[in-house]
């Protein structure tokens, strides 16, 4: 597989040529005009305003916030953050969360891609039922069956173990993974795989050599989805882990919350710290992700 040709998908400018027939063959490849650009930028900036608000609140003392909820941080203080970092046992819980999220992602991708590969290539009876079975799982909120799941994990001796939590996340996210991979595999021309098999490659090799690389883009989207879900989940680590040293970021962030006394200056720093590692990861892999998501792989 060679690199996917990256044709810059430029765009026509301000709808250049209504009269273009016979005229200039190519509409101008402008940037959408300064006005459109301004409007777009303003819109996007609107998306970060709530973060700026949370950040600004986090940088102020609790008394100051109670007095003037909307004022700017004229006397910025980091004490809210340092308090949150120690209360959340930040380094430890980041590590725990990374392990849980990473493990879940790997399992979901490997198992999901294999299943999606098979289900995408065949539509015979059993596969159709398997696919439907997976789809059904997308509609069930976890808290509905948390009790029998708890009993099951107890009997499997997986309570209080990180691996148990990873397995639960993997099972919960398999439906989405199967959905993603199956639909993607269906768009890959069957001849690709058949050609490989004619060359004597087995199923397993065809999967790894031909399909897995092609699944890169859809994997990127899936990884984003699964990472966000696992990283931000509270219920599963809370119920299935017991040792305080195993707690994830969200569990520790929520233990700062007492419903009778909800203080923005406790909560917002915890929220920002909770997403900070994700943000770093995201900025680092931003190019990979955007490029990854932008498939085009089929063109080979």
């Amino acid at each position: 597989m060679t690199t996917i040709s990256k044709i810059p998908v430029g765009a026509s400018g301000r709808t250049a040529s209504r009269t273009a027939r016979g005229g200039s063959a190519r509409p101008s490849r402008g940037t959408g005009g300064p006005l459109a650009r301004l409007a777009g930028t303003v819109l996007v900036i609107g998306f970060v305003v709530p973060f700026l608000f949370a950040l600004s609140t986090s940088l102020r003392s609790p008394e100051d916030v109670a007095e003037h909820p909307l004022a700017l941080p004229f006397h910025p203080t980091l004490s809210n953050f340092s308090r949150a970092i120690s209360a959340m046992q930040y380094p430890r819980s980041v590590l725990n969360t990374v392990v849980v999220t990473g493990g879940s992602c790997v399992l979901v991708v490997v198992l999901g891609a294999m299943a999606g590969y098979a289900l995408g290539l065949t539509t015979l009876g059993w596969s159709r039922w398997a696919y439907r079975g997976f789809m059904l799982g997308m509609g069930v909120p976890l808290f509905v069956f948390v009790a029998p799941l708890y009993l099951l994990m107890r009997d499997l001796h997986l309570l209080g173990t990180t691996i148990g939590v990873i397995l639960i996340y993997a099972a919960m996210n398999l439906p989405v993974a199967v959905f993603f991979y199956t639909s993607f595999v269906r768009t890959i021309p069957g001849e690709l795989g058949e050609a490989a098999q004619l060359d004597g490659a087995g199923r397993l090799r065809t999967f790894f050599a031909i399909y897995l690389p092609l699944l890169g883009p859809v994997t990127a989207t899936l990884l984003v989805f699964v990472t966000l879900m696992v990283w931000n989940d509270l219920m599963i680590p809370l119920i299935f882990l017991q040792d305080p040293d195993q707690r994830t970021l969200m569990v520790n962030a929520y233990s700062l919350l007492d419903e009778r006394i909800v203080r923005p200056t406790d909560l917002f720093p915890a929220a920002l710290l909770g997403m900070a590692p994700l943000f770093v990861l995201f900025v680092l892999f931003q190019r990979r992700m955007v490029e990854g998501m932008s498939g085009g792989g089929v063109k080979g």
Partner: protein
Amino acid sequence: MTAPRTQTRSRTLLPFTLPAVGLYALLMVYPLIKTIPLSLTDSEGGPTAENVGLANYRAMLDDATLLSALGNTLVFTVVVVLAQSAIGLALAAMLRRWGGYGKALAVVLLTPALLSSLMASYIWSSLYQQDGAINSVLNAIGLGSLRQVWLAEPSTALYAIAVVHVWMSAGLAASIFAAGFRTIPEDMLEAARLDGANRWQVFWKVEWPMLAPSLTVAITLSLLGCLRVLELPLVMAKGGPANATNTLGLQIYRTVFANGEVGYGTALSVLLLAVVTILVTAANALLRRREGRLL
């Protein structure tokens, strides 16, 4: 494709599904199978329960809050799915024209998705307050008459919560569409332009049909997220005012955990499962048929 070949193929492919099916069957299907019979009992979560037949399902018919919860869930879902897809598509179409600058903005767009929905609920609750940021901004730009206690007004509360959901998920929708745009072969666009199509025509005639698979993915994921929505209405408005933001997910949550009515709560979950399955299957069938027609 000939039948025998498909069959051998099917047989050699079967092992590939086994690990996934095994894990899924063990940790999802099995607990679910253990749960659903509870809907036929008066279980309160304890080790024993009496069989009550279909009483829980009959009770749904008399449950006035349930009907409004169903309505709220559907309104919320329609609003969010439409808004999120439209905004996601528009942003994806816009940002891809701007090269590196667009990519930088795309990062910004995705940041709300990084936040947990519980935390987002608390931040937005502050923004929506009577003397919160949103009303202050409206006042400052001379639109003071539009000021509202957004989460306390029955006619705006559900939509105010929908805005937060869209805020969190529009970036993801945009990235799904952005991926879709990349799969459109440049020569098709070029050909359309050579035929003299303007930008709108290129979009409607070439890009929009080619985006059909992306639309399927975006709408399916969005549907799943919306129909089960729980945290946002729970934290932001506690299902109120006067049940205006009570959703099916929230109703189940309360029935099971606050009231301890596990039997009835499970029956409600079966209803939710049916609603999700029907809507997602129907949407998927329609969208897939559309893909088949367009591609």
